[in-house]
């Protein structure tokens, strides 16, 4: 069987693309490794139009329900390879392979790590990357958040519900976040301290995290004792499928696409955080918008070229 469209990724972009693709009557399969993508771990979302506040997981569950109701097929799995064969695509997971006339890459991006010695060894043992998952484990403890963007400030506000003391370590002069999130952080008073123009130089601990060595001393000490460290320093694009398909990348390594999400490889359309449109402004609403655009272009492509794939598939 050949699908009209295979969408890789079950986050906001992939699910939005599936909803649109089904409205275009494309026979669509959605494959994803982690349901909900980054949105599912985002915690409370207050800027999704139509909802004053909605939990990220709930939002993704609602999108999934909508995609299923529209007729999309969703499978859990990790796609390891995409191969273009004439006018068709072979999409391989660890367990199976499927044929498609067009592919949408809603693959998101990879969380950036500090790349410090000991970081990997202490991951889960004091070093964490999902604040909504592991933040509450640090109830009444002292924690640090590394980062200077909106996610880190939002993360600090989340941690403030649980932790006794939070240090926000940023290499910038001050964090840059949505004003509403900055105001909330300031309202926590002395519970939150900002260590500006500071970087983590070392992660110290044997069986678990014990302290951080800072690039700039804090209260006369280079070493800061903490129970937990949360890292929110952004994302890097995943180039796996770009290499496999010969897709062009932009100057920052993201998948290069025009305004309609067309790439240099006909039939391949990226969406969501895998694309660096909107000057790096990455939101659920922008991811969903790019998913809708990618589905529209995939529909146009399949309508004009789909029969070529059917010919090859049956030959």
């Amino acid at each position, binding site marked *: 069987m050949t699908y009209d469209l295979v969408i890789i990724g079950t986050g906001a972009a992939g699910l939005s693309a599936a909803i649109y693709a089904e409205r275009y009557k494309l026979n669509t399969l959605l494959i994803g490794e982690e349901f909900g993508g980054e949105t599912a771990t985002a915690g*409370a979302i207050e800027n999704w139009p139509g909802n004053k506040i909605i939990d990220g997981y709930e939002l993704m569950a609602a999108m999934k329900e909508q995609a299923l109701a529209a007729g999309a097929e969703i499978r859990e799995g990790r796609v390891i390879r995409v191969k273009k064969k004439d006018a068709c695509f072979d999409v391989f997971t660890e367990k199976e392979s499927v044929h498609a006339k067009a592919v949408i890459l809603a693959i998101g991006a990879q969380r950036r790590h500090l790349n410090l010695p000991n970081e990997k060894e202490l991951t*889960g043992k004091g070093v964490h990357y999902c604040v*909504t*998952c592991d933040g*509450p484990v640090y*109830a009444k403890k002292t924690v640090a958040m590394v980062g200077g963007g909106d996610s880190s400030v939002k993360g600090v506000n989340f941690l403030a519900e*649980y932790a006794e003391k939070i240090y926000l370590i940023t290499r910038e002069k001050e964090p840059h976040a949505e004003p509403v999130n900055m105001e909330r952080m300031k309202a926590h008073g002395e519970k939150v301290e900002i260590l500006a123009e500071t970087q983590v130089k070392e992660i110290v601990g044997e069986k*678990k995290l014990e302290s951080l060595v800072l690039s700039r001393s804090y209260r006369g000490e280079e070493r800061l004792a903490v129970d937990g460290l949360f890292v929110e320093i952004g994302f890097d694009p995943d180039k796996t499928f770009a290499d496999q398909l010969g897709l062009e990348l932009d100057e920052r390594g993201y998948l290069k696409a025009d305004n309609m999400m067309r790439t240099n490889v006909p039939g391949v359309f990226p969406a969501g955080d895998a694309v660096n449109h909107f000057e790096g402004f990455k939101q659920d609403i922008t991811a969903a918008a790019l998913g809708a655009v990618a589905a529209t272009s995939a529909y146009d492509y399949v309508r004009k070229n789909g029969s070529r794939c059917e010919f090859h598939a049956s030959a």
Partner: protein
Amino acid sequence: MRSESITDTNKFIDSMAKVTIYTTPTCVYCRAAKEFFKENNVAYEEKNVAEDEQAREDMIVKSEQMGVPVIDVDGTIVIGFDRQKLSELLSLGS
């Protein structure tokens, strides 16, 4: 914030294994694991380590780490929601 009960022992009795899941209220992988158990009629006991300090200590001792979920299947500790490993431990055959 999502609110869930601190402990939630469901009523399914098909699984003979004693399953304990250590969670936080906002952890999506914990939620995915619980949905997996429900889909497969696996009875489990949930312990919210954000509020239950003893459960938190137990989890850290058992798993030697602080990430959730931690799932105890008859004494075998699974860190994170590892669908394949859980299927093997619970003989679910998927």
